[in-house]
């Protein structure tokens, strides 16, 4: 087990190294520089001083080596477009906004998805099932940002129930959270439904019922525990994706989070900020994939992690 975790972590570090390398040279390959974005002519003297200050006058390979050394020491450098701010400080400032929204949306998606999934797997009423199926089909197949737009037209513009943009009041969290959870709720509902249906027809469920266990405990303890495996494997990467923020949701609702900072940093050619955020996103994705594999192995001992 420990050996497996070590192996995965080593592979993860290697992946991060490749990622940093590719993005570093990719950024340098982009036309334009951090100092040319306003189309203002900068005197050659100033430009040289600026480039010297940020170490951009050195050859690209040397910059790369210096950057790698700094990252290993945990230093992500200072942002180029935001005067003198540490990259780590910017992350500290933006991360809570995005993470708060992401965690809310994650919890909502998982709870809602499992509840709807159980409901539609166990219900005897056909209409309940049909309603849930229609909902999940739309959620899975229609792009989320379009549903968010429709929701904005309806709830904010037409009915004026909720604020349109920003995160100033508790109510203003409702729409972004819903927007983030449309498609995950649908996916989790579908996963839960199909696996719970399979599980409920197996022999040990019949055994549990014949022992006289209450139906609620049959479903929760014997059914759900075994049926949630696909949900767990889905939830790991989902969590990583959600706390790193969604560009669409942040753009639509004018939320100052990581996703927006990321796009801005690329168009500003803010090399250090882009690199810092890339490392953050990449590391989260890798770690969460590992965590969900481990949790899956904990739930289901049949899964051997170190195969």
């Amino acid at each position, binding site marked *: 087990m420990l050996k497996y975790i070590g192996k995965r972590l080593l*592979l993860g570090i*290697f*992946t991060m190294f*490749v*990622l940093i390398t*590719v*993005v570093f040279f*990719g*950024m340098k*390959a*982009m*036309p334009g520089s951090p100092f040319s974005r306003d189309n203002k002519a900068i005197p050659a003297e100033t430009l040289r001083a600026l480039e010297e200050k940020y170490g951009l006058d050195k050859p690209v390979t040397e910059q790369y080596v210096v950057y790698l050394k700094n990252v290993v020491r945990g230093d992500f450098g200072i942002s180029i477009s935001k005067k003198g701010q540490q990259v780590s400080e910017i992350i500290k400032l933006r991360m809570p906004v995005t993470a708060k929204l992401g965690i809310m949306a994650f919890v909502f998606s998982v709870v809602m998805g499992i509840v709807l999934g159980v409901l539609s797997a166990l219900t005897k009423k056909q209409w309940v099932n049909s309603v849930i199926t229609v909902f999940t*089909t*739309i959620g*899975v*197949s*229609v*792009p989320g*940002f*379009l549903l968010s*737009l*429709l929701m*904005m*037209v309806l709830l904010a*513009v*037409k009915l004026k129930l909720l604020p349109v943009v920003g995160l100033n009041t508790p109510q203003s969290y409702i729409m972004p959270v819903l927007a983030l959870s449309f498609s995950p709720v649908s996916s989790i509902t579908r996963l839960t439904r199909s696996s719970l249906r399979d599980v409920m027809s197996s022999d040990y469920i019949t055994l549990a019922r014949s022992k006289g266990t209450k139906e609620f405990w049959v479903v929760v303890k014997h059914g759900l525990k075994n049926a949630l495996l696909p949900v767990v494997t889905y939830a790991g990467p989902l969590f990583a994706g959600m706390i*790193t923020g969604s*560009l*669409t949701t942040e*753009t639509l609702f004018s939320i100052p989070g990581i*996703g927006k900072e*990321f*796009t801005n940093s*690329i*168009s500003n050619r803010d090399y250090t900020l882009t690199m810092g955020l*890339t490392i953050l*996103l*990449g590391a989260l*994705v*890798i770690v969460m*994939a590992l965590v969900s594999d481990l949790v899956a192995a904990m739930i289901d001992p049949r899964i051997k992690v170190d195969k």
Partner: protein
Amino acid sequence: MSERITNEMFELLPENEKNSEFIAMESKTFLKDAWSRYKKNKLAMVGLAFLAVMVVLSIAVPMLSKYGFESQNIEIKNALPSLEHPFGTDKLGRDIFVRVMYGGRISLAIAFSSAFICLIIGILYGGVAGYVGGKVDMIMMRFVDILDSVPTLLYVILILMIFGNTIPAMLLAICFTSWIGMARQVRQQVRSIKEMEYALAATVIGASHTRILLKHLVVNAIGPIIVNLTTMVPSAIFTESFLSFVGIGLDPSIPSWGKLANDCRDLFFTFPIQIVWVIAAISLTCLSLNFIGDGIGEAFQTKKR
């Protein structure tokens, strides 16, 4: 034994027994069989019909309509739907119906061609990895894992910035990692089919690796591959429209669906109806593709009959 078979030993079959071994069911090829099952699925047929109408309209409407997708008429700007302009006009007096159909042309073309490119790459990559196996397979799959852990947004933006906001760059950005799912699936299929007797039989009669891979393995894995393909098209539509919507996708002069939605954002509060047309076009197209995918998936599942 000197007995010889002579003609007298044979006699004609009575007329009524002549066709006794005839199989009344028409012999069907694999695809015909799948199609006959597909036809029974109502939702899938509706999806197919809608998609066909959408494709025909997006080709024909911009050609036949008297309004060009760029022809402006300021006097009738922001008009509500009428007989003259079925979807109304936008802030510059351009006919929204024509623009949505023209956008469909671009978005659908990008979606279908990127799905096709991913199909080819996925089949080749996954096929080779699954067929060769061993070390090659491991290295190929590790490479895929690494590629997969790169945040989507990052490489998409990088590609679009390096190569400009053109349609080929958009195709590259969409395809950059979309083929991975296909490759994994093909690999899985090929690995299981490889062990079947007919693959062995093909090797025994001296078929080349390429032939076994393309003629036997891929053909037998075609069902799941097609299902995967139908999920790829809507996700390509989604990626393109969302990037253009946020403003980092295609060049603003190319009116794809995402760009149209972006155009309507300024008038979101005053004329929300304008954006609804684009949303409907994208959503219904994605929905029908989803139904088609489900239909094909069921049609190819021969075991469950």
